[in-house]
């Protein structure tokens, strides 16, 4: 178990080291998410529509679409110079490779979301600070779902010819339950409802997270194999 954890951590350390040097993922995801919010700001007249009603949807559109950029890059990085083959040649369990990439993606998306939230607060004039704790939990389980499924599909798409196109085509329809649940919970939180009133939504997203991770554990061996 200790060795398994070390291998997962080694993968995360490697991905973070590359990202710290290149800043490719963060810059592309952040710029895309910021642009989404900026475009919606100009399209929605906030003197007419309630920012608390439209804001959550816009926020999650920014998270999901910019997240797909990061997820797409996740396994493409491993395909360059045959690095995925190098990983496969190590004694690491295939699920360790999956969890390493999942945690890396989770860290990248969480950092991007941390920078996007203040922008969202400023542009939509929404005060998130009183509900930051519950909101952080909602964003975390929603992002976990995006990363759990996205990491699996990224590994699948990396073996396909039209890999940049295939990931969004596969990812977005399967993410619908998680995105709907996350948007709904974010709306309820902004409306001042307590987290205890949305336990069904919370359970639904947690179930989907578990299903995505479970399916990934069962299939990653076959997906990574040539």
């Amino acid at each position, binding site marked *: 178990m200790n060795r398994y954890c070390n291998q997962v*951590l*080694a993968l995360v350390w490697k991905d973070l*080291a*590359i990202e710290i040097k*290149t800043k490719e993922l963060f810059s592309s995801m952040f710029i895309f998410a910021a642009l989404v919010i900026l475009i919606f700001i100009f399209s929605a007249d906030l003197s007419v529509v309630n920012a608390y009603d439209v804001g959550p949807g816009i926020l999650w559109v920014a998270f999901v679409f910019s997240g797909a950029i990061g997820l797409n890059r996740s396994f493409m990085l491993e395909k360059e110079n045959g690095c995925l*083959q190098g990983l*496969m*040649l190590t004694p690491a369990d295939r699920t360790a490779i999956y969890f390493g990439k999942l945690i890396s993606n989770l860290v990248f998306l969480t950092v991007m979301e941390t920078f996007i939230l203040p922008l969202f607060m400023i542009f939509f004039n929404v005060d998130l600070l009183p509900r930051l704790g519950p909101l952080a939990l909602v964003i975390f389980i929603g992002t976990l779902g995006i990363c759990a499924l996205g990491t699996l599909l990224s590994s699948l798409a990396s073996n396909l010819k039209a890999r940049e196109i295939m990931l969004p085509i596969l990812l977005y329809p399967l993410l619908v339950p998680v995105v709907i649940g996350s948007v709904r919970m974010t709306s309820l939180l902004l409306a001042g409802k307590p987290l205890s009133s949305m336990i069904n939504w919370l359970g639904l997203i947690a179930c989907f997270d578990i299903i995505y991770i479970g399916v990934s554990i069962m299939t990653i061996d076959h997906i990574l*194999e*040539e």
Partner: protein
Amino acid sequence: MTDDAVPSDSAIHVKNVCKSFGLLDALRGVSFDLKKGEFLTVFGPNGAGKTTLIKILSTIARPTSGTAFVAGYDVLQGDARLRNEIGVISHATCLYGDLTPFENLVFYARMHGLNDPPGRASQVIEEVGLKARMHDPARTFSRGMLQRLAIARAIVHNPSVLFLDEPYTGLDPHAAVILKEHLAALHTEKRTVLMTTHDIARGLEMCDKVAIQVRGRIAFMDRVGNVDRDRFERFYFETVENRQKT
């Protein structure tokens, strides 16, 4: 762990291995045995199935049928212990361009579960003569230097079996000579090497055994001492031509 039919001194034991990709038969009943410490060079034209053979022996791909044992472990089981016993050097370097040689090797050493990854990384970097550049990004390296770094990556965990898949691809003559010296140093009594190439001169220089693989089959195999270089070259081209026609 070890099958009854596998000789105890065998490092690589392959029996009737077949691999198909849809209608294409990449390997058609490959069988051979390589003892511990031996060096086998497999010659063959493009599409002969040499890379597929190495991918199967290194557990990257599964055979359609047949059995193969490497370092006593069944490749079909995909045992993690088997992957600790093998190192692969191919034209793909398996290195991260944005990381330095030191970072690349520390990463692979950690993935192999070594006790002192930084210490071992420094040691193998020195062995392949890249100490002066160990903190420069790997993407700034020449093809020859990358291939030496790929050797360091493949031996960081001190494997007992090495697979060299067309290691000279894309190298200029000078870099190829340097690489040959490093590859020759890797072949010790305790380490078994299987190399694929279509470069006859270089392939014959270091090996104990030679084989010719054409269209997924081993068409010829003998000890290098029984082979005359000029006649072997003629024989190779004739065999390839005849097999390609059929």
